[in-house]
């Protein structure tokens, strides 16, 4: 049951991750672009259709009227009879009498003979077959057709009284030109609309998402340790609900953290008085150790060791709950990095070399001496306990910060434990379990807390030569 449920969860997460690829902001922009493009497309297409239909219609009507006029003009000329009473038709001459607008050519059929006003470019063959047949059968008609990429309208009018048929062909070049200009304009307008849509989308997504960004910033600040970060009400009913519940949630969380810290602190406080009594009592017994039988001596030694450890644990707990409760009581002093580390080594009665070039050793750090002494001291003791002691401490200058690098030659720390060992009461697995009797389980978490109070960071790596390397990074003071 469990694995499948987990698998399902994982799939859901994956799906979620895929869906979120675009991001809310980009999705809003995309919606706006698509919407505006669609809208402008619909408008453009209908505009184009409407305008082209109207323009072509007008042009055709005009051409038709012209055709009737021309047919009427031609009719008497086609009836001409000569002196011998025979009908004699000089169609080309008749055609020249017509005053066609440019782009319009006339073709006249008399019997099965066709005459064109521009025989070179327009023979009767250009006329669509259908139109020709229809008109020759006695019905006026008009039809649009195209040759190559040019479009034309052909109009046919039968002139039955003289047994002739009138055709004319009008090029729609002008209309085509207007329409293509219109098309260009519409495409441009569509593009601009899409662009404007994108801009409006970006602007409105930013406006709409700004409160979300503020919430994210506040949440990040809280994660980073600034627990006083809150959202501000801005009078927007929709947002204010989020703001209020967010703030209430953070208040609750802060309250819970404070209660936890206070609890740890209260417990530790209560433990101190009995511990003091215990420790003092034991020191009285220790002064008389030689008077005790051997079994009692062993028991006393056990008691003394455990009380000492207990005492350290309570001190560490107090220190940690203090780190929780208040960041204000950091007593910063400016110290020389090299000298400070050497003093700690001295105070812990070790003979560990402190390396580093002269400038680095003389770099100025602002530290709470008592706390930073515990930091380095805890790292030294940690190495004693789990790794056979510190082999060297090196100071490194990394620009804005100084790194205090504490090396040991123990088994190192497995990758998956490197974050966890800085948690409270977290001990490493195998290697550490052996020595678990001695530590308080709080040493490294105290290191992490104190370093964070100094706006620094601490982490552990494995040395290439083997062993662990703890690195404390602290900001330099500009001098």
């Amino acid at each position, binding site marked *: 049951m469990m694995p499948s449920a987990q698998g399902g969860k994982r799939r859901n997460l994956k799906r979620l991750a895929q869906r979120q690829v675009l991001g809310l902001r980009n999705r809003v922009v995309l919606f706006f672009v698509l919407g505006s493009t669609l809208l402008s497309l619909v408008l453009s297409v209908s505009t184009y259709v409407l305008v082209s239909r109207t323009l072509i219609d007008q042009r055709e009507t005009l051409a038709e009227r012209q055709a009737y006029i021309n047919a009427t003009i031609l009719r008497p000329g086609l009836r001409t009879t000569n002196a011998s009473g025979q009908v004699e038709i000089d169609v080309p001459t008749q055609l020249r009498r017509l005053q066609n607008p440019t782009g319009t050519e006339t073709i006249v059929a008399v019997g099965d003979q066709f005459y064109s006003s521009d025989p070179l470019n327009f023979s009767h063959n250009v006329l669509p077959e259908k139109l020709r047949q229809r008109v020759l059968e006695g019905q006026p008609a008009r039809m649009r057709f195209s040759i190559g990429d040019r479009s034309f309208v052909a109009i046919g009018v039968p002139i039955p009284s003289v047994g002739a048929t009138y055709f004319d062909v009008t090029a729609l070049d002008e209309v085509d030109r207007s329409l293509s200009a219109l098309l260009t304009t519409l495409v441009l307008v569509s593009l601009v609309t899409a662009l404007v849509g994108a801009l409006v989308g970006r602007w409105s997504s930013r406006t709409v998402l700004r409160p979300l960004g503020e919430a994210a910033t506040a949440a990040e600040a809280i994660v980073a340790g600034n627990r006083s970060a809150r959202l501000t009400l801005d009078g927007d009913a929709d947002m204010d609900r989020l703001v209020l519940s967010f703030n209430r949630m953070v208040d609750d969380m802060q309250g819970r953290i404070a209660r936890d810290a206070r609890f740890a602190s209260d417990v530790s*406080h209560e433990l*101190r*008085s*009995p*511990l*003091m*009594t*215990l*420790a*003092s*009592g034991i*020191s*009285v017994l220790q*002064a008389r150790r030689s008077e005790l039988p051997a079994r009692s001596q062993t028991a006393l030694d056990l008691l003394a060791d455990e009380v000492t450890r207990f*005492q350290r644990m*309570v*001190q560490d707990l*107090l220190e940690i709950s*203090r780190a929780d409760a*208040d960041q204000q*009581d950091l*007593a910063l*002093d*400016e110290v020389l990095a090299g000298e400070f580390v050497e*003093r700690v080594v*001295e*105070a812990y009665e070790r003979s560990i070399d402190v390396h580093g070039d002269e400038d680095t050793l003389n770099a100025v750090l602002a530290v709470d*001496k*008592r706390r930073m*002494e515990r930091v380095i001291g805890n790292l030294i003791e940690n190495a004693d306990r789990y790794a056979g002691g510190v082999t060297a401490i090196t100071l490194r200058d990394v620009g804005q910060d100084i790194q205090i690098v504490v090396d040991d030659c123990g088994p190192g720390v497995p990758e998956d434990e490197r974050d966890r060992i800085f948690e409270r009461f977290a001990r490493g697995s195998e290697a550490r379990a052996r020595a678990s009797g001695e530590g308080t389980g709080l040493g490294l978490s105290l290191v992490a807390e104190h370093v964070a109070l100094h706006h620094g960071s601490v982490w552990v790596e494995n040395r290439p030569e083997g062993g662990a390397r703890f690195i404390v990074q602290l900001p330099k003071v500009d001098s």
Partner: protein
Amino acid sequence: MTHRILLIDDDERIRTALRLALEDEGYVIDEAGSGEEAMNVFNAHAADIVLIDVMLPGMSGFDTCRMLRRVSDVPVIMVTARSDTHDVVAGLEAGADDYVAKPVVAKELAARIRALLRRARTPGQTSAVMEFGDLEIIPDEGTVKRRGEELHLTRTEFRLLCELAGSPGRVFSREALLEKVWGYGYFGDGRLVDVHVRRLRTKVEFDAANPVHVQTVRGLGYKLAP
């Protein structure tokens, strides 16, 4: 010579355990369970060192210390709840000479007591009378006079003034003063020096906010103007 220590703590078990431990170190112990009781005990047997727990029922540890200061310059060690809250500064301002944080080990406490007793005995390096403007320091008598009028300094304040007066004009770092006056090393609490200097100023200066004698040298420490 045996020294008398007055233990003021409301927890009887702590008193008993500390008494046993300190008696092993060769001290004579008086006990008091409250500030009021302490004043009576102190009046009956003047102690060489007084140990005050900050958290007392009724009259607080701070008030007890202030009360004691009115009648004596006996060295006082405050037993505070924590080492870095306002308790420490408040205790020192109430007139304590030093502090230890609970839970304290008897050995550490004995070391602090020894350091304070040593300070109480040795008046300073020089025994010649020194004058600084309207101030007159008489090491042999352990007194300081301003315009001929004797000032009431505690022994720690006096010792601090003598250290500074030993090399007039020289700047003493807080670490140096901590070591010379309190016997602490590099990691001693600098607030001991700061609060004692502040208290010293309220006594030897006309205007403690604008000190003429005990001057602060920013970022370095303190000096006595020659």
